[in-house]
């Protein structure tokens, strides 16, 4: 089988944890299928991370320092053509969503997205499970040799220590890019830092109306907690972006995460599943949030919040 290609993503000058996870699994799979691991990174800043990636070989598409989708895709396709890849692994992040489906379609390779497990099977193929339908169902998928797989970050742990040095080859990508970077935008830090709170009262679309946020504010005050939320609450303009937990928001690990009216979509879980204690209140007993919560109840959050606030001696 051709090599296993791992596309590495950088996060503030270091390899992202999701990339390290992929490299760990790639090394195991490569051993099982008697092949090699080849890493691909973008931008000069990735050179060091590729050198200590533990891969057998690495390509660096230098050029622009920041990620540009079209350039990254051209580089990945060039690597696939040069190496006859047996498997292509990307994190299911923005980068993976850009490059995974497009490369699979352009190169005529099968594609499996949202994977949470990946194993080798005899005869040179793989088997994956994917989280679909907002995490309500799991699909077990036969992954043929040559497939492109995007993996949800945090699906398995990364190896602690990686030894050896990986030779890094420079990749020259031909052609002009139809897309150019205008500027990068740093996160808006907002009024509070939800990543520092011990207790988060986190509201989802179940809050139904912005007027009901007052109930969450009162509860948070009585608890000495901070209010955070799921993405739709931010998109509706009800709370500022700095309060958002999840894939495109903040990753939080409070002592207590109280999820109120949050379904538990994979993109939300990614940002809070390592909280010490998770309590979920959701009227739907099949909501995926209950898979990660330690305690749960199916009562109405609008009814619960004022009662809880009162019991805690707040807002009378």
């Amino acid at each position: 089988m051709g090599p296993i290609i791992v596309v590495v993503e950088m996060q503030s000058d270091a390899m992202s944890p999701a990339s390290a996870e992929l490299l760990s699994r790639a090394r195991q799979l490569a051993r099982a299928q008697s092949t090699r691991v080849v890493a691909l990174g973008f931008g000069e800043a990735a050179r060091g991370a590729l050198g200590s990636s533990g891969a057998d070989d690495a390509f660096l598409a230098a050029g622009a320092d920041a990620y540009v989708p079209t350039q990254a895709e051209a580089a990945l396709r060039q690597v696939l053509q040069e190496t006859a890849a047996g498997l292509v692994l990307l994190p299911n992040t923005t980068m993976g969503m850009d490059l995974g489906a497009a490369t699979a379609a352009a190169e005529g390779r099968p594609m499996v997205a949202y994977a949470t497990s990946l194993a080798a099977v005899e005869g040179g193929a793989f088997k994956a499970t994917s989280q679909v339908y907002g995490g309500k169902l799991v699909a077990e998928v036969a992954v043929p040799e040559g497939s492109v797989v995007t993996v949800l970050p945090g699906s398995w742990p990364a190896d602690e220590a990686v030894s050896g040095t990986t030779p890094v080859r420079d990749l020259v990508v031909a052609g002009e890019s139809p897309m150019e970077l205008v500027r990068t935008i740093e996160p808006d830090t907002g009024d509070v830092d939800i990543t520092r709170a011990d207790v988060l009262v986190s509201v989802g679309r179940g809050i139904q109306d912005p007027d009901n946020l007052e109930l969450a504010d009162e509860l948070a005050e009585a608890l000495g907690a901070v209010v955070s939320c799921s993405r739709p609450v931010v998109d509706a303009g009800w709370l500022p972006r700095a309060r958002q937990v999840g894939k495109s928001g903040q990753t939080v690990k409070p002592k207590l995460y109280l999820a109120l009216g949050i379904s538990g979509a994979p993109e939300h879980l990614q940002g809070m599943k390592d909280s010490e204690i998770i309590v979920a209140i959701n009227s739907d007993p099949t909501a995926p949030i209950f898979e990660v919560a330690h305690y749960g109840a199916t009562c109405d959050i609008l009814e619960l919040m004022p009662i809880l606030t009162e019991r805690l001696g707040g807002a009378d």
Partner: protein
Amino acid sequence: MRIAVLVKDVPDLVEELELDESGRGLAVDDLSYVPSEWDDQALEEALLLKEASGAHVSAVALDTGDVDNMLYTALAKGADRAVKLVGDYDRTLPGRQRARILADYLAGAGYDLVMTGVQAVDDLDGQIAGLLGGMLGWPHASVVRDVAVDSGAVRFVQEYAGGRMAEFRSSTPLVLGVQAAKKPPRYVPIARIRQVSRSAALEEVEAGGSPSESLAAIERLYRPEAQGHATMWDGDAEQVAAALVALLDEQHLRS
């Protein structure tokens, strides 16, 4: 700027998801469907672009079932045209094959910008924006917001983890997977949609049958096995509040 917005409906996650007898798919006829929420965001962003800079917006759907109402809704919201790609296929058509049919249509239809939702709850075989970008050989980006027309080119912002973002400028034709519109999607009353469905016509375009695409096959579809399901507190809100306060006390989490 000629914009195509691709719309589809997906199983409503609020309802129970029944599996079919094979255990490899959903019992598609027994489910209820809702428009994919991110497609709604894409349509809204396109309509806002039209209002800001005079774009021509077409809503495009593959006729895999009951898509007429979705298309009339798009017209009622302000789309200029609604296109239904008809052919011999149904809801079980895998995403990859849907993408091929859409790509074949889009390749010759003269659009500058194709917008679609960033993902759909059922697109396990890859997100449609990326698939189309790859099939058409057009530039594309996912997880996009704040789309603007800039002297024949398109500017947009792409989101990354932790709230980081980057702004790009791209030539057209271009495919964008839209995460969120600048404003929450507009609402149109049902009476208005009914009115449009009586006065406006959907444009039907004959598209091909099920094309061949390389497949990764589902072997089993199942509900997550409760690895560590929550300990559930029964009872009404009063009882749940009491249980929660007891937990807070036990964990010394009361301020």
